[in-house]
Structure formats: structure tokens, C-alpha cells
């Protein structure tokens, strides 16, 4: 096992390499491109025995990935943001084929307006697609989760494609010390893929399912896919145990940090959760019993685990790096759904939305989130969702708007593009 500095993108590429990927359909998009560049370089140097094909769009890329998976080989691909959305039609389609493969999504905020920096609205759009989702918090988790994702997707109790999600910039371009598992050990862990009845072959045409179904058989297939996805909880936990035994790193479905005796608990996804971890440590130094729950597994949603881990807590602060327009935070709504009616459910469940388009969430903001949550617990009253935004940010926004106004006036009045 070698410990070296790797970006999240480099880690994703290592995951694909160690899993013995056979085929990689690809299409570039910032901030994901480094993954396919790294794989292309290895294939070029004969360090990796795989076939890479650059497609003309993500729509084709997802189709090619699933078609290849339906021939019983191991497939990996990667995308981000608008790319994931462009492939969205096929995302929903191919999960119904029940042919597993691994798709890395490097989270990036969606247009318009455009940004290159991360939030989770892109991967949330794939929430109901039938792809399972593992969310990473460190570069180490990216490499390990990619291996876990192949095993999980290929498990006979599941057989569905899996998304491994990592945040753009904060993981994709950030180097951290990463232990690269030994190639033999990784290969042993992932194992040989048994495609069972998946057997598309060149020169022997067969059809994939039937064209149109009525509601009853349609429902059967949809329900079966849902139940397969739900099996992901059990399967993932088995795999995480096996992984921990073999590699010494624990990646359980929900990462519980200092939660046992906590009364206030942060709940959030992704790389910014390490900041919440730092905040928990600082809050503990002042005697506040804070904790953090971070779902690694987002699909299937580990509702039962959440109910268990949050039983008897006083206040929960859900921090969403996504926004469902006209509703609010997606994780908040899902957690509320999981907890509702449970006699042990915490009385106060608060929603905070922040970190959109890479906006920072400072340590001080985590402290304040804890303080607001404690106040809600004491007053037995839940405040409305807080959209994290400061006075200073609005000042900077006003400056941009002033520049835009000057520009608009200038362009509209002068009709002359030259600025003197």
C-alpha cells in the first residue's frame, strides 16, 4: 500500500484502474476531465488494459456505458453538472436495463447563471433515476468508494448502476494524502464480475425487453427496481465491513462522528462535512455536545439508520448544498420524511441552505448554526429555513449589479462597443 498525494480526480481514476475496468466511454467537462485524461494516459502507456472511446455527448456516453455493461463487462465513466443533465434521459432509461456500471459525478452547480464550482443540485437531479449514490468526503473515500460501488452494483441482490459523487474543486482538484490499495488486494476485493443472464454479444442479435407495457407489468418492474435499490443498505453494510477488515478503513453507510452523547447534530453530505467535523471538535472544546451524521449512501436512503442514530437527540441542523426551488433543501425534506412519526425523533429539525456554487461555509457559520439550533431546542420552536448569506456578500453583489447597470446603460445608449 502506497500513501501519496492525489487529487479527487486522480483517486477516481485509480479506483477505475484497480477495479479492472474494461471499457470507458468518455466526454470531457470541467471539473471532471482530469479523470478521463488520467485513464487515457495509463491506457496509452499500457499501464491499464482497457478500451476508451470518446463519445460525442453525455447522452451517448451513458448509452454506450450501459450497452457495454449489458454485454457483461466492467464499465466506468465520469461526468459533471450539465453533462449529467444532458445524459439524464439515458440515466433513467439504463437503470431499467439492470446492467451495472460505475459513473463518477464531480459535483458542480447548474446553469443559469453559470459556475464551475460545486453544489449538489446536479447529482440530486439523478436522485430518482434508479442509480444508487455514494457521496464522498475525502480523496481517500473516492478511491475506496469506487471499489465499493463496483461490488455493490454488481451484487446479484441489486444489479444497478452506481454514481460515486465527489465535489468539484474541494475534492476534484484538491490533493490529499491517499493510500492507494495494493492492486492484487483491490482486485481480490472487487472480484470477478458474474453477469448472470446479461449476455449481449457481437453477431448474435437479441432484444432488450419489450417496447410498451401496461401499468401492471410496468409497476412490477419499477417496484422490483426499487426493492433492488433498497437492498443496497444491507449489501453496502456487508461490503463496508469486508472492506474495513481487508483495508482497515471504515466507510459505513452513515458516518457518525461524536454522535453517541451528542444533543445537537449536524447532518450534511459531501466534502464540506469535514468542516463540520472540525466545528464539532471546536464546539466540544467549549463543552457543547455536538455531533455530525454524514450519509455516504444517499440512494438507497439509510432512513432506518438515521432513525436509530438520531433517536433521543434534541436538535438537528440539516445543511443542504442544494436547493429545490419552491421547496428548499432536499436532504432536509428526506430526513424529515424518515423521522416523521417516530416516537424517538428529535423535536427540532432545522434547515440551512449554504455552499451553493462553491460558496464557503465558515467555521463561524457552523458555530452559529449550532447556536441557532440550541435556541430552537430551548424555545421549542423551529425557525424557518435559513439561506446562508451575509451582509458583506450582499454588498459585493450590489457592486456587481452596479457594474452591470453601468454596462447596460453604456451599451444601450452609445451603440458603440469601444470603451474610452
Amino acid at each position, binding site marked *: 500500500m502506497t500513501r501519496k498525494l492525489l487529487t479527487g480526480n486522480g483517486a477516481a481514476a485509480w479506483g477505475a484502474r484497480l477495479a479492472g475496468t474494461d471499457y470507458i466511454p468518455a466526454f470531457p467537462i470541467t471539473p471532471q476531465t482530469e479523470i478521463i485524461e488520467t485513464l487515457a494516459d495509463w491506457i496509452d502507456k499500457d499501464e491499464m488494459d482497457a478500451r476508451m472511446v470518446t463519445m460525442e455527448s453525455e447522452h451517448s456516453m451513458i448509452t454506450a456505458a450501459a450497452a457495454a455493461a449489458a454485454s457483461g463487462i466492467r464499465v466506468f465513466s465520469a461526468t459533471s453538472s450539465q453533462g449529467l443533465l444532458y445524459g439524464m434521459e439515458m440515466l433513467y432509461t439504463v437503470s431499467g436495463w439492470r446492467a451495472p456500471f460505475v459513473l463518477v459525478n464531480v459535483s458542480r452547480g447548474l446553469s443559469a447563471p453559470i459556475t464551475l464550482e460545486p453544489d449538489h443540485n446536479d447529482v440530486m437531479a439523478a436522485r430518482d433515476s434508479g442509480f444508487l449514490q455514494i457521496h464522498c468526503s475525502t480523496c481517500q473515500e473516492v478511491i475506496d468508494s469506487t471499489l465499493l460501488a463496483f461490488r455493490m452494483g454488481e451484487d446479484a441482490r441489486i444489479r444497478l448502476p452506481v454514481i460515486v459523487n465527489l465535489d468539484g474543486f474541494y475534492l476534484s482538484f484538491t*490533493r490529499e494524502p491517499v493510500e492507494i490499495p495494493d492492486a492484487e488486494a483491490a482486485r481480490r476485493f472487487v472480484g470477478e464480475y458474474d453477469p448472470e443472464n446479461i449476455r449481449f454479444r457481437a453477431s448474435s442479435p437479441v432484444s432488450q425487453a419489450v417496447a410498451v407495457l401496461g401499468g401492471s407489468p410496468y409497476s412490477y418492474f419499477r417496484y422490483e427496481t426499487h426493492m433492488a435499490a433498497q437492498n443496497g443498505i444491507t449489501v453496502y453494510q456487508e461490503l463496508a465491513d469486508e472492506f474495513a477488515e481487508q483495508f482497515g478503513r471504515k466507510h459505513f453507510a452513515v458516518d457518525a462522528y461524536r454522535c453517541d452523547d451528542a444533543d445537537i447534530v449536524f447532518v450534511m453530505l459531501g466534502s464540506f462535512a*469535514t468542516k463540520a467535523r472540525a466545528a464539532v471538535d471546536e464546539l466540544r472544546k467549549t463543552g457543547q455536545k455536538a455531533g455530525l451524521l454524514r450519509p455516504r449512501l444517499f440512494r438507497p436512503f439509510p432512513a432506518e439508520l438515521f432513525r436509530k442514530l438520531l433517536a433521543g437527540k434534541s436538535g438537528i441542523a440539516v445543511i443542504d448544498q442544494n436547493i429545490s426551488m419552491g421547496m428548499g433543501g432536499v436532504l432536509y425534506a428526506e430526513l424529515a420524511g424518515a423521522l416523521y412519526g417516530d416516537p424517538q425523533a428529535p423535536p427540532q429539525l432545522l434547515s440551512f441552505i449554504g455552499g451553493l456554487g462553491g460558496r464557503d461555509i465558515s467555521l*463561524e457559520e457552523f*458555530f*452559529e448554526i449550532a447556536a441557532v439550533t440550541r435556541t430552537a431546542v430551548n424555545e421549542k420552536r423551529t425557525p424557518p429555513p435559513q439561506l446562508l448569506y451575509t451582509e458583506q456578500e450582499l454588498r459585493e453583489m450590489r457592486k456587481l449589479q452596479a457594474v452591470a447597470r453601468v454596462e*447596460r446603460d453604456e*451599451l444601450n445608449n452609445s451603440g458603440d462597443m469601444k*470603451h474610452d
Partner: protein
Amino acid sequence: MYRIRFHGRGGQGMKTASRILGTAFFLEGYEVQDAPRYGAERRGAPIFAYVRANDQPINERGVITQPDLIIVADDSLVPVPAAGVMTGIDQHTVLLINTDEDAGTWKHRLNLDCEILTLPAEAKERDELRFIGATCCGAAAKLLGVITRDKLQQAITEELAELGNDVIEKNLARALHAYDSMQAHEGCVQTTPQADASDYNKPAWIDLPFEAARISAPDIHAAANSVEIRTGLWRTLRPVIDYDRCNRCWWVCSTFCPDGAIKVVDQTPEIDYDHCKGCMVCVAQCPPHAIEAVSEQQAQQQELAQETAS
């Protein structure tokens, strides 16, 4: 925990500098995090890169807002708000600038009470600029005081391995020279503790007011946009037309300009220097070689001298 930020322009090697420093820390046994922030993703545009190093795993993430050390490869970035050079600077921060001027001038100009240091004067020379990343990380390593000369060398050799021995040797020479030149300031960088949960500055959260789409839509409905964003400041080289040599072809330079920054009036091309990013495509394309590439810095100094004289 050490928190270090490198500022430069796209193409100056700030990402590589941050990686070299990150690797040097890692070789010294530190936990490390290093990352670039690309901004406009264009050569010449402001970029920065940052490094965190600690004796235990690092949970802090994202842009550094409390820098212990700021390294500026190009002093023209200091007054550019989008570059964010001054973000989070305070009394404990060490500011290291590549500049022709002395530290006292910058101290006075910025009204700062932190330590300001300058890179060796020769780093500013045109031929040395392509090694500015090596110079920056070499100097930074010495200022930190916890990175040995050996580990710096090893880090450079590892990070530049794919570029071959010649490139490695040249960068090593600059980095080690800068390292040695900072002898008098060895270990001057001080870390600062992170925010304390019992006594912290409350974030000044507001309830964002609703504003009608007329104001809050991200649109500028106009024939062009970004006129007010002077992308010309990304330029490190300036194309200058020699009208004696220009054969008034009226189209080559203006057609090839990828930014639409050359327009032709009465068969005479004019360059919009507010928006020319200095890509030098016009210089390459002009058939009679009538466009010359001039150092932006020198051109600005000449302009200043002319203005002062008149």
C-alpha cells in the same frame, strides 16, 4: 496548521508551485492539502493556489481565509479585486512579493502592519519569469523554516519528473537560490489558531430580500457584455501595431483576434487594449509582421514616463 496562498496569473506556474510546496511538506511528514483555484481558466487571468500543512489530518477545506503566508508572483495583481490577494491578510501574515520596488514602498502603499518581503530582484527579469513558480516555492520553503533544502529538491524533482532533467535542473537552481536568499527570514511564518467556538465573530447573516426579476435575473440585455470587465489586465505581453509596416489588408488581425478586440476604421486596425488579453494570435498571423509583442510592464512604464513628461 500552516495556511499558504500563492497568487499569480494563469501560466505562471502557481499550481505547480503549490504542489511542490505541498509535496515538500508531505516529505517532511506533514499532512497536506493543496489545490488551485482557476478563476477564468485563461492564460494571464488571475489565479491562486493554496497549501495547508498540519501534524494531524486536515478537516479544514476550501479557500484559505486566514493566510499565514501570501506569495505574489506578479505585483500588478495586488490592486485587482478579482485576484483577492489581500483577502484575510492581518498582522501575523507574511506577504512575499515579486516586485521591482522595495518592501517599504509596498508597506506604505498598502498601509499594512504585517511583514512584507520581496523576492530577489532578478526574479522580475523577463527571462526569469518562466521560473517564477520555482522561485516562489523555494523562497516560501525557507520562510516556513520547516522544510529542508533536501526535501525541497526532492519535491521539485518529483513534481517536474515528466518534464525531463534539463527543466528540473533549471528550476532547482532558481528554487534553491531563492531558498538561500531568504536565510535572514528563515522560519518567520507564524501559524494562527482557528476560530474558537466560545468567542467567535458571529456571521452577519441577513434575510435576503425578494427582488423582482427585473433586478434579480442574471441578465445584461445588450448587444455585447463584459465591456466593463477589463480583461486587458490579464495581458503580460502587448501587441503593438507598427503602422509603417501595416499594409492595410483590413482583415487578417481583426478576423483572427479571438476576443473581437481589434476593429478596423478606415482600413486601419485599432486594438482595444481594455479587452485584448495578449494572446499574440494577431502577432503570429500578420502577414507583413507589422505587429510586435512588447512586455506589458515595459509598455506601461513607457506610458507613465510619457504622461509624466507631458
